[in-house]
């Protein structure tokens, strides 16, 4: 029973009702779905904020070294896409900031003082990113080349520090530290230890590699479409190869980081791991099931791989893995959602890692781009798959934490607003997001319709004559 001790101890910690008092919200699920929809829209943009600027700067650096115009045309074109994605990210990020208060006022009122600092630091990063993106994108051919490249360097750095802070908050929600609960109130707050909580590091690295996979595969996929149409220019070739190589490097590394993340979840949130596998009862040498569904404490129709779950969770085939029955039913997450998402993420991740390794080995052995007919189609499919895996990963984290908004401290049902109209808000926002998506795609197509040569044209007169 020693293994159960930490979980039981944690549950016996006081649970908080919320500083604004009890709530009576009939539409909790709508609030959660609204939040999930907003995240699903914003997170892919974050990937572009984190990974894309570094790739663009690499291209510009290559241009400075080689004076090959294809690099410059790509870097300039992509920097425009980057600013566009950033603009959309600004508005979707603003919605998220509002939603924290609009949907979860009691969460913010109770814990804003504990984790709010992270958002302050994120705000600064975001501000700096906005400033330097403006200088970089509108400074092409206007400020001296060396300074232009330098003006771009803060962009990937601030992209990383900004998302780092948001992930720190998510890590904290999953492993809340840095405060005490006395008489139903949050006291003795240590904002810095809340920020650098132990759950933070693996989430951070996992997300960064995911960002490089998503961006690399998606961008490569777009140029693979042009490649298949018969456009074999150097411009298209570089636009295909560089992002593909970046993603191919990230994909196998993600397997290792995923293993680290899985073990951390097993240590800190055994219930999330139990839900991800569908492990109803605590088991020694637990099996991992591929496919199937969870029902009444067991996985039905799945293919069992003996002892694999124990190996994955503890690196020990005979280790004990805690099951869902260690806590009462009201403290368990919705198992099948978490489980399907987990299986999809791991399945896609393994596939992409294999693709990455095969591509890299062939590239290295042949010393040129392999001429496999399936390579461009595979790259085209890999982008959307990586995106699905990314979102599934966040479903595992977020749904797997339920019914808690702050793990074992505050229930999501205690955090939600008492305001009306949540279903209306959901469908209204859905319409807004679909409009936004349509506008975004329309813009990218307009941008792509111009020939790459236009990026190399000298700028026109500054003032009208």
């Amino acid at each position, binding site marked *: 029973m020693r293994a159960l001790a930490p979980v039981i101890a944690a549950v016996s910690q006081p649970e908080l009702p919320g500083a604004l008092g009890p709530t009576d919200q009939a539409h909790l699920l709508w609030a959660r779905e609204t939040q999930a929809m907003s995240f699903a829209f914003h997170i892919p943009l974050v990937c572009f904020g984190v990974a894309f600027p570094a790739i663009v700067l690499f291209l510009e650096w290559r241009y400075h070294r080689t004076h090959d115009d294809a690099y410059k045309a790509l870097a300039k074109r992509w920097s425009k896409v980057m600013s566009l994605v950033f603009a959309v990210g600004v508005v979707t990020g603003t919605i998220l900031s509002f939603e924290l208060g609009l949907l979860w006022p009691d969460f913010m*009122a109770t814990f804003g003082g504990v984790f709010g600092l992270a958002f302050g630091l994120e705000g600064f990063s975001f501000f700096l990113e906005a400033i330097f993106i403006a200088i970089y994108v509108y400074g092409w051919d206007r400020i001296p080349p060396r300074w232009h490249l330098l003006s771009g360097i803060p962009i990937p750095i601030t992209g990383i520090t900004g998302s780092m802070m948001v992930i720190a908050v998510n890590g904290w929600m999953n492993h809340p530290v840095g405060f005490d609960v006395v008489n139903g109130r949050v006291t003795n707050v240590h904002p810095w230890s809340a920020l650098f909580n132990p759950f933070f590091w693996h989430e951070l690295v996992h997300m960064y590699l995911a960002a490089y996979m998503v961006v690399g595969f998606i961008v490569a996929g777009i140029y693979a479409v042009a490649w298949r149409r018969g456009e074999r220019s150097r411009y298209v070739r570089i636009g295909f190869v560089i992002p593909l190589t970046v993603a191919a490097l990230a994909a196998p590394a993600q397997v290792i980081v995923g293993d680290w993340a899985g073990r951390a979840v097993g240590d800190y949130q055994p219930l999330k791991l139990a839900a991800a596998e569908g492990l109803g009862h605590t088991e020694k040498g637990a099996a991992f099931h591929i496919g199937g569904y969870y029902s009444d404490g067991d996985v039905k129709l799945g293919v069992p791989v003996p002892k694999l779950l124990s190996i994955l969770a503890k690196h020990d085939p005979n280790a004990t893995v805690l099951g869902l029955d260690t806590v009462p039913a009201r403290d368990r997450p919705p198992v099948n959602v978490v489980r399907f998402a987990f299986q999809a993420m791991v399945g896609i991740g393994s596939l992409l890692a294999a693709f990455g390794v095969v591509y890299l080995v062939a590239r290295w052995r042949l010393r040129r781009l392999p001429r496999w007919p399936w390579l461009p189609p595979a790259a085209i499919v890999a982008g959307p798959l990586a995106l699905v895996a990314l979102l599934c990963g966040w479903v595992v984290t977020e749904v797997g934490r339920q019914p808690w908004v702050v793990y074992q401290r505050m229930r999501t049902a205690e955090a939600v607003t008492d*305001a009306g109209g949540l279903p209306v808000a959901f469908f209204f926002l859905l319409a807004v997001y679909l409009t936004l998506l349509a506008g975004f795609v329309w813009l990218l197509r307009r941008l792509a319709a111009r020939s790459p040569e236009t990026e190399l044209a000298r700028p026109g007169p500054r003032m009208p004559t």
Partner: protein
Amino acid sequence: MSLAELCLLVTIVGLTAYAVFGGADFGGGFWDLVAGGSRTAMEVRGLILRSMTPVWEANHVWLIFVLVMLWTAFPVFFGSVMSTLYVPLFLATAGIIFRGTAFAMRGQARTLAEGRAIGAAFAVSSVLVPFCLGAALGGIGSGRVPVGNAAGHAFSSWLNPTSILVGVLTVLTGAYVAAVFLAGDAARSGLRELEESFRRRALGAGAVTGLIALGGLLVLRSDARDLYDGLTSGTGLVLVLASGAIGAATLLLIAARRYEVARWSSAAAVACITFGWAAAQSPYLLPGELTLDQAAASHATLVALVVSLAAGAVLLVPSLVILYRLVLRGRLEEQFEPIDHGYQEPAR
């Protein structure tokens, strides 16, 4: 000065920056909306697009800054306000999305129909957002937001005389500041005709805003007596008078085409009002419900926040200076094109 006061001060500085810079961007949308269909109107729209393009994202971040300050330093205030005023704040977020998207799409429109549809989305949301944000402020100032989870009324908390007054004033102030900035931009670029047309707009909007603000005091007197008393006595009164004087001086500066100074003085007039409001409400954040000290987060949180703000400012201030200098010196790309998607000169 206590730490809570310091954090409130920084929040109001952020709010002022948003009211001036973000407000000017919204004001640009206002002028876009009312520009009409003449040839000059197309040039007006082109100038607005050019002036806003490199800076609107940085300007917008001030809003996020204010939100973050509020939820970190004054979490109970934030939770109460967001949950009661959910309708205007939700509308504001929707407006922000439409506005940002439409703005990004604007320069890419190729046909008259596309340009009109996108322009309409941009312009209408540019008026909707500041109105909703102002109305929310009016709800707070008139004491219509109680402490609690959606404890106030969903509609009368922001559809009331004070909210409507503040909403309208927010829209007009943005329009006024925008006109001052744009007149300066046009003058700097040697676009005489546009300069003149924005100069007229600035003078008109400034005068109208001032008159409505004066008349609005009567509205406050009957609808938000505590706020009115605060604004007409002590520090509040000093700042209100200062705002009026600076506002009047700004009109003279604009008349004399001294746009650079007018830029600063119009911002100062806005700052006097935001700080005057805070002084008038003191010591309350939610009038009659929650004082600043009751709302403040723990000491450790406030210390950490102030330290982070100081460290962040060291990086942020020079970066902002670089951006605005590059913009003001015309070092960033700024091709001026009238927005005239397929515009045909009317037959004479």
